[in-house]
Structure formats: C-alpha cells, structure tokens
C-alpha cells in the first residue's frame, strides 16, 4: 500500500489551466444564459482542485523518521528495494534530510550515514548492502604451510580489526570444521585421514559484516596399513502395510532376511535405533519461505535438535540459490541455531545442488547419516539434476527425509527457463524416487501444519529403526551396483535404501 501523504494547507505549486479553460469555453458555446452557470462550475472545479487534500505537497521530510519507514515509502513509490533486517534495524532513524531529486539519490543518501549502500540486483531490484565495512585481516598462524598434520590439530588465527569480531570459521579442505565466537581464535580440528595435502582456511567476520580469509596447505601422513571394515549396515523402518494403523509388532533378528543381488546374507549384527546420528538440517530460505514459514522452520529445527541424544551430532545449512549459512558439525544443542535464525529469506531454490552438498558433507561423518530437508522446493536454479543426485545417493550412506511444504496441494506443474512443465514434473518425480531410494521419505505438509510435529515424527522413526549388519562377499571395488532386499513377516512394510555401489 502506498501511504497517502498528509494533506497540507499550502498553496499548489503548479497551475491548472488548460482543461478548466476548455470547460469555460464549453460554457460559452452553450449560450449566454448559461455563461454564468458555466463560469461558476469552472470556478467550483478550481476551488475543488485546490481544496482536494494532498493536491499539493511540500517535499517529503524524512529527517527523524525510522529508516524502515523511509525505505517503505520509497518502495511504495516504485523502487524495488530489498533489504535484510540484519542490516536495517527497527531502531535506525534518518539522520540527515536527503537533498536528491531522484529517488535513487534519495535512497543512497538515506542509507549512507548508516554505513549502507545500494547495489543493483536481478531484474532491476535494489539491494541494500553494507558500504565497505572497516577493514579486517586474518592470518592463520598455526599450522604453517608445508607442516605435517595428522589426527587432532590445534588451528590458530590472528584477527586484526577495529570492529567487534562476530565469529571465526575454520574449514578443512573447504568443509566447515569449527566456529569460534570469542578470542583466542583457535580450535582443535581432526584432520581427515586421506592422502595428499590438506588445506586449512579461516574466515573471520566482523559485527559490521567485514570478511577476510586466509589459507595454508599442509601435508598429511598417509596410513597405508588401513584395516578395511566391510560391514554393511542397513537401516530399516517398519510399519504396518496398508489398511492397518498403530505401532507395528516388535521384530527380532530372526524376522529379517537380507538379500544382496538376490542372495541371502547372514546377519552379523542386529540393533535398534541406538546407532549415533549425524544429522544435517537443510533449511530452504528462498523467497517463497519468507516470513512466518521460515520462522516456523527454525522453531521446528530447534525442537528437533533438542530431541537428538548427546552422542549424536548435527549441523545446519540454510540455503536458497546459494548457501546462506552453514555451521560445522557439533553437539546437537539448540544453540547451534544461534545467529542463524536472523537469516533473511531471499532468492530462488537450488534444491539439488544443496542436497548434493549435504550428502558430501555427510560422507565424512560417523554413524547413521541423515539429511533432514525442509523446503517447499520447486527447483529451477540448480546446476545439478535429479539424475546427478541419484548417482550420488547410490554412493552415499545417508538417508534423506524431506518435509515438503506443499502449497500447491499436489499440483506441481510449472514451466521455467530450464525445463517445460512436463520436464519439471519428470524432474520432481525422479527426485522423489531418489529420496525414497536413499531409505528416507517425503512427507508432504499442507499449509498450517505443525512443523515441529513432523520433525518429531522423523525423530521417532529414526529411534525405532532396525540396524541390520552383514559382511558382503566378493567385494570388487568396481563401481557395480549391489541391490538390496529385506524381507520380513507378512503385513509389515519395510523401508530401506535400495542398494549401494561397490567402490
């Protein structure tokens, strides 16, 4: 809505002549008798024009107005301004009256005293960004380049800035390893046991949004005498088959039969729900999740983290068409979401790309790996496809649980610049299959549904899962597909991953 400007008693700053003149001329043509009437009408029109509230306005004064309100006014006048509440706080006020005539100048002048600037975004939108925060530099002081690193390594950085440091992130080979929020800027990080070199990166971020990074490359000791542990674990969820509700019966080790490529495998281990979980919460914060939905997602994620056990671990990735926030894996505390909940929804959805990133991040984690995806996901901006994801899922041990906010109630057809409606439908169906093949599932949530309840449902399912272990025979490491089938008593439906790649 455009806010109607206040009426002012000031005289108009322009004159209204031609049409009134035309009205008067029309009056003259109507004859002498009506001349007085026409003249009166014309006069009335003029009086009405002058008396109309808002007919003439003094230039809008912004000084002292909350900045948010000033931006809203500019938006109402046609500027497509996009800003984050992280940058424009409710308590910011206009400290200097803008002198520009053109709206873009006014916008720039409103923002400048707050250290903010404008950047032209997609489709002519105007993005409010920080205008060059005070400089910050960061240097990795330990380990040093070329040093041999193995096992747990103390990583230390020095940060130089006049601003408050918000946090320092440490990455190993590009993967988040630790976040430190106060000095000293150091963390103990376990180096992955892989051959070759190892790259440590530090990214420091100041409260004002300044960023700096530094990297060093070290050498790793390669343990050639690794013991190959070939135990395959299959996570199985059981429920009643169609038509029956309630908890399924307790199943014992004798109730399960595992077949790999059609050949029955003797079970070596049997457990239930007690394998520690590595969970990656993947939260869609694209434009369509703006507002209450994103907040509800964060609330539900907090609930989910509370329900994880102390021996579990979790990380959170918030994404749109890019990664908006990513935490390292750590104990599943609600504090993990600290600083993330202010993330503003923006941009399109690159679901496939970020599902792949999540699976890659989980490759190196221990225990039962799950991706818990919360998205209303209509993917039009991923560079990867569902076929790429299928390839990855077949080589990953992680299961995907997708809580899908279904605004369209099943009607998903839409065309995009990359695919026609049929292509998008096909892509969606394949993605759904990939999720199911991972041993996870999709839960379609209608608008207004209790998200926390859905998260709790996933947790209950994970805790009730059976864990069947067996030693596969004839491992060839040839990239071949080993399909799986698990059978049990009639009337019980099992869900598990479709197989795995021998590599």
């Amino acid at each position, binding site marked *: *809505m455009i806010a109607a400007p206040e009426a002012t008693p000031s005289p108009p700053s322009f*004159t209204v002549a031609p*049409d009134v003149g035309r009205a008067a001329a029309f009056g003259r043509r109507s004859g002498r008798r009506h001349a007085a009437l026409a003249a009166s009408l014309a006069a009335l029109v003029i009086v009405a024009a002058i008396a109309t509230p808002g007919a003439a*306005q003094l230039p809008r004064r912004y000084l002292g107005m909350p900045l948010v309100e000033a931006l809203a006014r500019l938006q109402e006048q046609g500027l497509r301004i996009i800003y984050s509440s992280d940058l424009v706080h409710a308590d910011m006020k206009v400290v200097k009256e803008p002198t520009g005539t053109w709206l873009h100048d006014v916008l720039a002048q409103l923002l400048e005293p707050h250290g903010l600037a404008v950047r032209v975004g997609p489709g002519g939108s105007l993005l409010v960004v920080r205008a060059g925060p005070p400089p910050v530099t960061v240097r990795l002081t330990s380990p040093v380049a070329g040093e041999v690193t193995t096992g747990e390594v103390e990583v230390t950085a020095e940060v130089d800035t006049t601003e408050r440091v918000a946090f320092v992130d440490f990455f190993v080979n590009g993967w988040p390893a630790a976040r430190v929020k106060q000095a000293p800027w150091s963390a103990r990080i376990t180096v992955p046991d892989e051959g070759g070199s190892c790259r440590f990166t530090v990214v420091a971020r100041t409260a004002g949004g300044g960023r700096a990074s530094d990297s060093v490359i070290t050498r790793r000791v390669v343990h050639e005498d690794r013991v190959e542990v070939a135990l395959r674990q299959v996570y199985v969820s059981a429920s009643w088959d169609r038509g029956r509700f309630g908890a399924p019966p307790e199943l014992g080790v004798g109730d399960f039969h595992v077949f790999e490529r059609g050949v029955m495998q003797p079970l070596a281990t049997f457990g239930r729900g007690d394998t520690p979980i590595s969970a990656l919460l993947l939260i869609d914060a694209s434009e369509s999740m703006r507002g209450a939905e994103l907040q509800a997602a964060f609330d539900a994620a907090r609930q989910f983290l509370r329900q994880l056990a102390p021996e579990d671990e979790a990380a959170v990735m918030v994404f749109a068409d890019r990664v908006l926030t990513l935490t390292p894996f750590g104990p599943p505390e609600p504090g993990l979401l600290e600083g993330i909940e202010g993330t503003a929804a923006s941009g399109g959805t690159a679901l496939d790309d970020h599902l792949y990133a999540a699976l890659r*991040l989980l490759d190196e984690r221990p225990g039962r790996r799950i991706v818990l995806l919360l998205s209303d996901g209509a993917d039009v901006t991923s560079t*990867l496809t569902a076929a790429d994801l299928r390839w990855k899922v077949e080589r990953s041990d992680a299961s995907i649980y997708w809580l899908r906010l279904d605004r369209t109630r099943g009607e998903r057809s839409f065309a995009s610049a990359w695919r026609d409606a049929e292509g998008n439908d096909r892509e969606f169906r394949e993605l759904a299959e990939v999720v199911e093949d991972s041993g996870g599932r999709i839960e379609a949530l209608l608008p207004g549904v209790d998200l926390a309840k859905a998260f709790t449902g996933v947790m209950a399912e994970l805790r009730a899962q059976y864990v069947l272990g067996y030693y596969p025979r004839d491992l060839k490491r040839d990239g071949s597909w080993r399909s799986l089938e698990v059978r049990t008593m009639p009337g019980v439906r099992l869900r598990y991953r479709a197989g795995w790649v021998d590599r």
Partner: protein
Amino acid sequence: MRRFLTCALLLALAAAVPAGAAFREQSKLEAAYRRALGAWAAGQDEDALAQLQRLDQDGEVGRLERAKLAVGKAFGRRNPAALLAAAALEERAYLVYASRRPTMAAEARHTAAALVELHASLDRAPAARTADAAMLASLAGSAAAGSQQSAAEDLYNRVLALVPRQPAALLGLAAIHELHAQYAEAAELLAPLVVEHPDAREARLRLAVNELRLGRRERAETNLRKLAGDGVDWVRSLAAQELAKVLAARGDFAGAGATIDAAAAVLPCDPSLPVQAALVAERAGGATPLDLSTLGACGEAAESARARYTHAPSSELVPLRRDIAAGEREWRQALAGVLGVVAAQPRVSE
C-alpha cells in the same frame, strides 16, 4: 407563459443532469490527473504517485483510461515529448501496483503503453521512435519481471512494430519463448540479434543454450566455449557450467573439470561452480573436496548465474533504461511547459 417556461426549463435540466454529471466526473478525473502530472513535472515524485494512486483506486477503469488519454491528447498536440513523461509516471505506478494491486497495475500498464503509442502517432522522427520503443521495452521488461508474460509478449511485439530488431525486445521475446519450451522460435529471434550485436553476451548465451536443446551440438559447444573463456560475468559462469555438462556427458571429466575450475578462478562467488566442480571430480574418481569456504567468504556478493538466467533478461534493458533516465528530465520539462508548472529543480536541503 411563465408556467410553460418553468416546465420547459425543468425538462431541459432533467435531460441535462445525467450528461452533466458524466461531464463533471470526466472533468474531475482529468483535473486530478493533471495535478498528478503537475507534481511529476515539478519533481515531486512521491506526491505525484500518491495523487495518481488516489485517482487510480477511486476511478472506474475504462473512464479513467479515457480521461488520462484525453488529457494526453490535449497537451500531446502542443509538445509530444510531454507524453513520454506521463508514460514514465504510469510505468512507475505500475511497478508500485504490480505486486499487490493487479487491476490498478493493468490499468497503469495499458495507459503507459497507450500514451507512448499516442506519442508515436504524433512524432514520427527516428529519435522519437527509438524513445517510444525504449519505453515500451522497459515496460515489457517490468511486466516480464513480474511474471506477466502475455502482457510482456504483447508489449515486445509492439516494440518490434516500431523498431524491428530492437535488441531488448528480441531478447525478451526469446526468453518468453523459452518459458513456453519453444526453443526453435527463441533461437530464431536470437540469431539475428547475435549477428548484429556480437557483444550481446546474454543473447549469445541464450542462443547457445537453445541450440543445445535443439540438438545443434557442435555450434552450441563452439559458442559456449567462447563465452566460457572470456569475460568476468554471470554469462561466463553459466556458459562454463553448460559446457562442463556437455563434456561430462560424453565422459570428458578432465575437460569438464578444467572448464569449471577456470570459471571459478575468476568468479569465486558463483555458488554453482564449486558444487559442479565437486561432482565432476567425484565422477572422475577423484577426491576434490566440496569447497564451501569460498562461499562463506563471499557473503552477500554470492550470486547464482543460473538464477540470473531464470529471471526475465535484463542485460539489454540496462543501457536502455539509462537512456530513458537521461531523456526523462527533458520530457518532464516538456510536461511542465504544457501544464504551466515549474519544472523539476534539485531539492534544497532544509
């Protein structure tokens, strides 16, 4: 006799009242529109928009358009350039209404286009024609950005009627064809554009992508290779991504990886590149890590080239809108002249 005269007068008045009411309503609308235009000409943008909004939300659509065009015709004869200023106000109003007031937005769009076409009928000079085409293309771009594809298509076609092969219209229409999966039609529009404007990188990219879809692999690959090896923009990133897909599909993972790495070296803040690099390396049997630390360091500078392509094309609209902004001051002066108001002056600090 007096009684007869009174009756005749009453009868005449009874007949004149409805026509008079309509006339008064029309005059009122026209006067209100002139006031809004007066504020616009005087540089009081927000007042102009607020006045126009009051008019637009209160007025009946058909009558409103008639009133606005009547005003436009009246002053357009005196100085046609003033019509472009009025059209610019309507386009600004369209942007304001677009997301929340569809009826008002449609009226503003129709009126803006009608005012531009009125201008085109009054001033047939080549420069005026170029300006008309630019205004309509800008309006079409705004409509396309707001997912009003059929309105955008109609406006782009009107642009081409004025200036055949206008780049923004060709590009915009091609993007609409892509949305309708009409890839051959899109390529047909883009091919002459690329010949005439070899520096139009977005058009070259869209042409290559559509040629790929049409199975013209060799030509598409050549063009993608050129775009992926040159420039520092989102076009380079996307060309590299598409080329890498082509190479990976035929098993050339080394070539795909090199293409992506070269693009990532100059465009570290495109979020798709590290993801695709990691997948290509993994498929090749390597262990290249997925590097998300670069993206962490990019912050708000991270921009998805693929998302840019998904939006309505804007690259050809940028120079065009710059020209419009440059011309707008002059148009507003013309509007001020025909309305008899003081033209926009730089606002003095109070």
